[in-house]
């Protein structure tokens, strides 16, 4: 029986040559095994390709001309390239303003998230603190039971009167209980001696947190900061129910109004420069999608490892 070898370490077992792989399946290469691998590589490749295909399609088609979109029924790469759709959507400052709003919300929202998360996680990481247990229980209960959508809405919009302000977008999600618990566990893992030496040097707990603990926790903070930031950038629902003034709308909400809500799309479009010749709706939609997706797409490959790390941290604890 001929067994093909692959480029892994070879060991002798019972007089037979066995290759042991780096992965879990260091193997004899039986024909079945080869067939399986080929099939597996193909399926994974196909899955990855289907995952990105819609995005590639949208990006390329957003540069197509009106004529081409109407006459050629199906294509990915356009014959003639045009930036009319982009010129059109940037002709009014509506989209630029929404972009700015999203940046504002994401920046300050993340700052608030990190402040609240860290200031709560640090004291709770001290096991000697009195009242720690009841507060932790308070946090854990809130992970399993909530007031629900409507009481939350009533509290924010009428009891606190935050409706129509950005506070309604920034404060209600200020702490993710789950993230806070993970950060707390991380703080607990920092050697106690480091903090004690700081307090001997005259630092109070606040200074110890800022000077010693936070610098040691930068990777964790970066990871959770990123999770919070992506959450803010991608959210539309709080903006939709709490904001009244459409000048304050973030990008996602504008996108929803243009594409998803058919009724709103006509009025949204007419708000743009009326002197501009209207390109096909389809390519405008695609251009808006591209504008809203590009920031995440650009930073994602560089930050992927932090995101994955964040999930791992949670997974090991959970």
């Amino acid at each position: 029986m001929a067994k093909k070898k692959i480029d892994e370490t070879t060991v002798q077992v019972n007089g037979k040559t066995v290759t042991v792989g780096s992965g879990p399946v260091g193997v004899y290469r039986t024909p079945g095994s080869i067939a399986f691998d080929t099939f597996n590589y193909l399926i994974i490749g196909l899955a990855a390709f289907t995952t990105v295909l819609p995005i590639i399609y949208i990006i390329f088609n957003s540069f197509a001309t009106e004529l081409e979109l109407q006459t050629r029924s199906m294509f990915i790469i356009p014959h003639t390239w045009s930036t009319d759709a982009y010129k059109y959507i940037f002709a009014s400052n509506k989209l630029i303003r929404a972009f700015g709003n999203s940046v504002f919300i994401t920046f300050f929202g993340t700052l608030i998230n990190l402040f609240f998360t860290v200031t709560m996680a640090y004291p709770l990481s001290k096991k000697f603190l009195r009242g720690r247990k009841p507060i932790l229980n308070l946090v854990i209960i809130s992970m399993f039971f909530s007031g629900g959508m409507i009481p939350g809405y009533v509290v924010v919009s009428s009891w606190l009167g935050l409706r129509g302000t950005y506070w309604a977008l920034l404060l209600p999600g200020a702490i993710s209980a789950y993230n806070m618990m993970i950060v707390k566990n991380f703080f607990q893992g920092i050697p106690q001696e480091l903090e004690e030496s700081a307090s001997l040097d005259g630092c109070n707990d606040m200074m110890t947190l800022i000077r010693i603990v936070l610098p040691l926790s930068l990777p964790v903070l970066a990871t959770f900061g990123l999770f919070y930031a992506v959450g803010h950038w991608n959210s539309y629902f709080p903006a939709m129910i709490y904001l009244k003034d459409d000048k304050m709308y973030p990008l996602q909400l504008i996108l929803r109004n243009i594409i998803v809500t058919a009724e709103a799309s006509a009025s949204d479009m007419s708000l743009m420069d009326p002197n501009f010749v209207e390109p096909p709706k389809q390519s405008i939609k695609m251009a808006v999608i591209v504008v809203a997706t590009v920031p995440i797409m650009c930073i994602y490959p560089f930050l992927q490892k932090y995101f994955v790390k964040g999930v791992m941290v949670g997974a090991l604890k959970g």
Partner: protein
Amino acid sequence: MTTKAVQNPAKPMPAGKGGYWHKLGVDLGKNKWLYVMLIPGLIYFLVFKYLPMWGIVIAFEDYSPFLGPFQSPWKGFYWFQRFFSTSKWVTYLSNTLILSLMSIVFTFPAPIILALMLNEIRNMHYKKLTQTLLYMPHFISIVIVVSITYVVFGTDGIMYKLTTQLLGHSIDYLGDPGVFRWMIVGQAIWKETGWGTIIFLAALTNVDTQLYEAAMIDGANRAQRLWHITLPAIRSTIVLLLVLRMGSVLDTGYEHLILMSNALNRSVSQTLDVFVYQNGIVNGQLSYTTAVGLMKSLVSVILVVTSNKIAHALGEEGLY
């Protein structure tokens, strides 16, 4: 006497005198900054988590924002009765359950299968590249996912044209109630399957490779190794996630659903969540929808506790 006291400053308080609150007072002085730091977080949880829980009281009132929770007239269980007196609640509940079960049946196993397949890939460059691509949609907002769907599956879209050419008749992907649930499930699979593999791949890195070597020497083939080593390694992760998922069987992702629902598919897109949003926030029936939301939350808590018990009975660690 005095020297002894100095040598032993952390002497416990005499019994009886200085109970919990006294000690807390002493501790407050000693660790004042720690307590100061707790304040914002504590206020956050009380105001944004516990005040809404107390706000459930409006489910038992005819709440009016002008009268407030204290002045609004008491209604008892009126809203609960009203919900069950219309026959529509069956529709809402069945829409919710069908969508949830479909999503458990199709979207829950998908990342497990994908993780097992990724785990078999030994070319690290290929693995890294495909993982990068597969994780990406997780970071795309649901608005964009739905927008892409509208553009691709709408009457001007490439998929609409393609199916019309292939089948000879068109499919109304966005309006047909028969297609609606498959679209939702499909979007969820596209968006989250890749990202969902991470937790399983993390569990798989803990498997001792000697197990595989030993199994090979004993003559186990690839399928046997997968079945007897790899799968048991992620068993507890699967059970834990399933417990969590069971607890949210009544949650249907309203942020996603309200973007996809329209006049044509209303008969299937109206789940409990969508009903609460539509009648509560859009139409202002706050007491009624709070009552519906409360029933939903209670059922969810019962489901988590039950499925956790089942997990324990199966010899797994479960959630708590």
